């Protein structure tokens, strides 16, 4: 199991109401999981917990057999740097860095991912170019452009390349296709699948767009498994 959640309870403050309560959720290594749920079903909260930005108020969140709540905040930041790739809904790129430098970012914060990237190519830049090529961004002219001039679809693919840089075990994508055209969504997801399968990365893909569900191995409906979905908090 790469993710193993047991009796998870989460509330923002000790005395506030529970916003997330999951009895059990298991994700196998290499799985591509679709997490669907309307706003307020606790998606962002679940992702924060998986990424180790916040910790469970009760119960346990194990990622790669490591109970995250037992780590200090600095250790969790290290853990995230080493093992987790993350794609945001939009505006994923740091505007003042080049495409290549954006992709290289994880290697600046994790020696482990730098090492793994170097195991696949002679230097980091070659590996970044290779990943970008796999995501249909192999035009050298694109790599030189300011990231703000790229189309939204291109930006999301650069973000995917960054999240996959140095082969993290877990890739978390938070509605990465919601800003893309319908016909581009599928091709983006397929590219993501190909890369994940090639290196055995587990993909947690969150979206409220149920039409994408059919592409995935398995679907979890957060509204069903979260006993405390409120529909107002933690959108």
């Amino acid at each position, binding site marked *: 199991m790469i993710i193993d959640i047991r009796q998870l309870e989460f509330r923002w403050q000790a005395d506030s109401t529970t916003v997330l309560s999951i009895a059990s959720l298991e994700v196998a290594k290499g799985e591509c999981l679709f997490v669907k749920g309307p706003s307020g079903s606790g998606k*962002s909260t679940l*992702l*924060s917990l998986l*990424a180790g*930005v*916040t910790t469970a108020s009760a119960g346990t969140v194990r990622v790669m057999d490591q109970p995250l709540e037992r780590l200090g*905040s*600095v250790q969790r*930041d*290290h853990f*995230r*740097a*080493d093992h987790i790739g*993350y794609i*945001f809904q939009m*505006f*994923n*790129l*740091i*505007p*003042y*860095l080049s495409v290549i*430098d954006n992709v290289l*970012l*994880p290697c*600046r*914060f*994790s020696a482990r991912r730098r090492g793994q990237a170097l195991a696949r190519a002679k230097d980091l830049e070659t590996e970044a170019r290779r990943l970008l090529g796999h995501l249909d961004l192999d035009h050298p002219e694109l790599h030189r452009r300011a990231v703000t001039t790229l189309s939204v679809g291109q930006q999301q693919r650069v973000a995917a390349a*960054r999240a996959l840089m140095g082969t993290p075990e877990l890739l978390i994508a*938070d509605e990465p296709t919601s800003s893309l055209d319908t016909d581009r969504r599928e091709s983006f997801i397929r590219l993501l699948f190909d890369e994940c399968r090639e290196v055995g990365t587990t993909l947690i893909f969150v979206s409220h767009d149920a039409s994408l569900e059919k592409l995935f191995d398995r679907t979890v409906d957060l509204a069903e498994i979260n006993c405390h979905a409120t529909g107002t908090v933690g959108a």
Partner: protein
Amino acid sequence: MAIFALAWQSLLNRRFTAMLTVVSIALSVTLLVGVERLRTEARLSFANTLSGTDLIVGARSGPVQLLLYSVFRIGDATNNISWKSYQDIAAHPLVKWTVPVSLGDSHRGFRVLGTTSAYFDHYRYARDRALVITDGRRFADLYDAVLGAEVAERLGYRVNDPIVVAHGASDVRFARHDDKPFRVVGILARTGTPVDRTVHVGLEAIEAIHIDWQSGAPIPGVSVSAEQARKLDLTPNAITAALVGLKSKVATFRVQRFVNDYPEEPLSAILPGAALSQLWELIGIAENALLIVSVFVVVVGLFGMLTALLTSLNERRREMAILRSVGARPGHVFALIMGEAGFLTLLGSVVGLALLYLLLLAGQPVIESRFGIFIGISALSSHEWTLLSAVVTAGFVVGGIPSYRAYRLSLADGLSVRV
């Protein structure tokens, strides 16, 4: 280290506003260190208005008053020194030289000083610099006059021009010594001291123009022409003050005591250096005000940086969430902003210093010729280093505010951006 590379790239991206911040810090540093430099040099220069003279002797009074009238030509002497007392002091075995000073007349607002040729030999200012006659020569004839630089410039005098001395400080028709006109024979180089505003004539000339005067007015019915006066004994009865040089500095207090205890008339001997610094303390309030103003300019410059950093934070919250997502700790986010603040302050200080030295190089000759203040282009003094490190420290402290805010924000935001 990765975070500082990021800070640098982020700064390059905002290079225009960053440059403005650097410029404002640089200018404030230039002003602060420049004022400090000028202040130190002005004080030194002032303390050296009269150097090389060990004692000033005058009628009994306070040191500042004696200094004011004998050196700065401000105010009047309460009393004179008799010629005999002066001779006695000059004859003291420890005294190397004496220069008599006789004041009381003026020329169009500038004081006239009667002295001897020894004045030009022994008068020193600004760390042992001697008077230089740029045009002409010293006085030799009875009715010769040597002008200070400002007198000549303001009144447009040149060598060989005639001038008429007036009795007292105010130049009114009935009090002019117009029967005995002087001739300009020399013009002195600018010194930045009261010498610039002085008309120098021979001691005998002072005597000559007053030979037919009594109690501040011409004696009715008595008239001695300029030529007749030459034939008379022009040894003065009294002088206003005397500058005294000693054979050894060690003897200063012995000679001072000799003068202060002089039995035949009440006299005072003062140490010019001590009196000058006493006087500087009085007028030094202005220079402190100047320093305080420039400190505030630095504070304003740093507040500019604070404003720029704080306003940029909201735009950068997404950037911070992205950095967090790739494994940056909140501490990294703190370092990102702190690195920027520190870099801006350091760069501002370096640019400010460079600007200051450029200005000093360019301004040195002008300041020297206009104000007689010689500003040495030397390395930073320890006091200037202290000021500079205070600026840099303040920059880091100010940078701590947005850094801490960014730290709190990135802790609260995590990977989501709530703008």
